[in-house]
């Protein structure tokens, strides 16, 4: 089980992510989303940096959980503005809550996604469900 001291912890910001037109196109293409250069990135694009923050949480020596044993339970985004090519984004993750139910850790997180100026671009809230794996 994940140690209960995890609740309330804020992780360092993720490495800056350059939002390139090529990467936005690849992300859009994977879900068949029409995208033309100059368009805003698709709404779920900030998951790229939010997911990087979640991986740092999972790989933290004091946490140490395997991605394959994690189910993404819930995801919410609130946008200050759309993401566009040329942005440089970071995500700063805070563990809002930690509950243990039926042998599973229910980890509530909020990642603040900010641009190069430090201005908030979007807030990404994720619930991760960690079960002890059999794999």
């Amino acid at each position, binding site marked *: 089980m994940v140690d209960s001291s995890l609740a309330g912890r804020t992780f360092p910001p993720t490495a800056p992510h350059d939002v390139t037109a090529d*990467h936005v196109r*690849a*992300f859009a*293409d*994977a*879900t*068949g*989303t029409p*995208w033309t250069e100059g*368009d*805003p990135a*698709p*709404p*779920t694009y900030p*998951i*790229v940096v939010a*997911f*990087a923050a979640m*991986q740092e949480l999972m790989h933290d020596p004091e946490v140490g959980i395997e*991605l*394959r*044993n*994690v*189910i*993404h*339970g*819930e*995801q*919410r*985004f*609130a*946008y200050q503005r*759309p993401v566009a090519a040329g942005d440089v984004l970071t995500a700063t993750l805070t563990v809002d809550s930690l509950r243990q139910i039926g042998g599973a850790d229910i980890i509530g997180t909020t990642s603040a996604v900010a641009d190069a100026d430090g201005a908030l671009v979007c807030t990404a*809230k994720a*619930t991760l469900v960690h079960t002890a*794996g*059999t*794999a």
Partner: protein
Amino acid sequence: MTAEAGTELPTQTFTVTRADLVAYAAASGDHNPIHQDEEVARSVGLPGVIAHGMYTLALAARAADTWAGAPGRVVELGAKFTKPVVVPAGDDGVEVVVAGVVKKVDDGLTTVGMTVTCGDDKVLGMPTAVLRG
């Protein structure tokens, strides 16, 4: 968009294949093998390879962008991932259907309640988008 509360928005149907999941894993950075490898997926108790929850949410977002009439108008988006979208091998893949109903129009913001299904299953819980304009 101009729509009153209660308006049903055009239902949209999308196809998901395993090749899409491979492309999505590369683009998103989520390389969890349960989205690509049948054996790993079954080893953790899943019926087979499943789509990333975020893949399904991206399809809901795609529908929301279409309803909004232009990209960049989604101000809130969220859902619970309640049931997996099992994606069979092969080019046919599986269909995901996104329906939407206008719940509220307030101060230029339109709240859309969605229903996202795969076969008979609702795969997202309370999927909701708030659209500007």
